[in-house]
């Protein structure tokens, strides 16, 4: 067997691995919840329509959510959120782009439960900020992947002005919870 044929055989043998390494996972039904705890009021809003793409082999991850898709318990809260604070007609989406950082030895392409770091940038209200947090990734044997994470966002970091008159109703730091189930694309 010539050297060229050996190389070709080797490349073909590796092809399934390379293909596997490039597997992308996606979701259009990602859940994102935010919770504000303040002395005068607790506020929760949720969307179940965040879009996300994940490449387990490289850890690359992105998600985006429509601001107008966040639903509140009260209509007035939703109106103020969109018009007064998030200005969602001008800044319609929140976007995260980053990377999962697994622990040494963890292979996110194999079934298992993994605690990972998350490093990236989050853009809210048109203002991009670095974000560093942790997440739990469950890679199921059926090929699905579930990712869960929690982190905090300060409105002032994204140039979101909270008038003094409602300061007692909105927390200085908002807890964001992400729960996304991915399927192979």
């Amino acid at each position, binding site marked *: 067997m010539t050297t060229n044929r050996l190389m070709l055989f080797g490349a073909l043998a590796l092809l399934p691995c390379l293909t596997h390494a490039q597997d992308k996972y996606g979701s*259009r*039904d990602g*859940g994102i919840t935010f919770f504000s705890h303040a002395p005068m009021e607790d506020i929760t809003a949720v969307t*179940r*329509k*965040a*879009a996300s793409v994940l490449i387990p082999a490289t850890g690359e991850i992105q998600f*985006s*959510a*429509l601001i*107008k*898709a966040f*639903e*509140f*318990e*009260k*209509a*007035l809260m*939703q109106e103020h959120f969109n018009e007064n604070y998030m200005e969602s*007609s001008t800044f*319609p*989406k929140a976007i995260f782009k980053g990377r999962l950082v697994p622990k040494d030895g963890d292979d996110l392409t194999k079934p298992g439960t993994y605690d990972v770091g998350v490093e990236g940038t989050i853009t809210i209200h048109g203002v991009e900020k670095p974000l560093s947090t942790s997440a739990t990734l469950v890679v199921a044997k059926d090929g699905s992947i579930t990712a869960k994470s929690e982190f905090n966002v300060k409105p002032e970091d994204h140039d979101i002005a909270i008038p003094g008159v409602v300061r007692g109703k909105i927390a200085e730091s908002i807890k964001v919870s992400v729960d996304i189930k991915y399927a192979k694309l």
Partner: protein
Amino acid sequence: MKKKILLPIALIVVAVAAYIGVRMYNAEVPSASGMSVDTKIQADALFNAFTSDEVGAGKAYNDKVIEVTGIVRDITRSADGRMSVLLETGDPLGAVVCEFPDPTEDPVVGSEVVIKGFCAGFNLDVLLQRCALTGTRNSDQP
């Protein structure tokens, strides 16, 4: 004598204003059911409007009650039971997604439906929320 009349009237006015204020403050986010329609459009035309000019389409359709007509591609349910009806757009990578707040009768995949909902914008799909089914016709019907 005037004071005796004015005081109860003032109290009534304050009570009514407080009642209206509390009602407005606690009002729930409305469903599209029972709302008047701002725009009627086919699902593929709505999708194409956003893919060709997302900003312009957002100005035209976002926050409006849109009545969309289209063929059901798929039906999904979230973990909390909310139903989403995906309408064909001619683009396999995108749909008009109509999210229903309450459990409702599932339309048939392949049937033509008319759904109204509040447009929330475009994020791979066009999203209509708090939807109501206003009409359906199965594919085997004339």
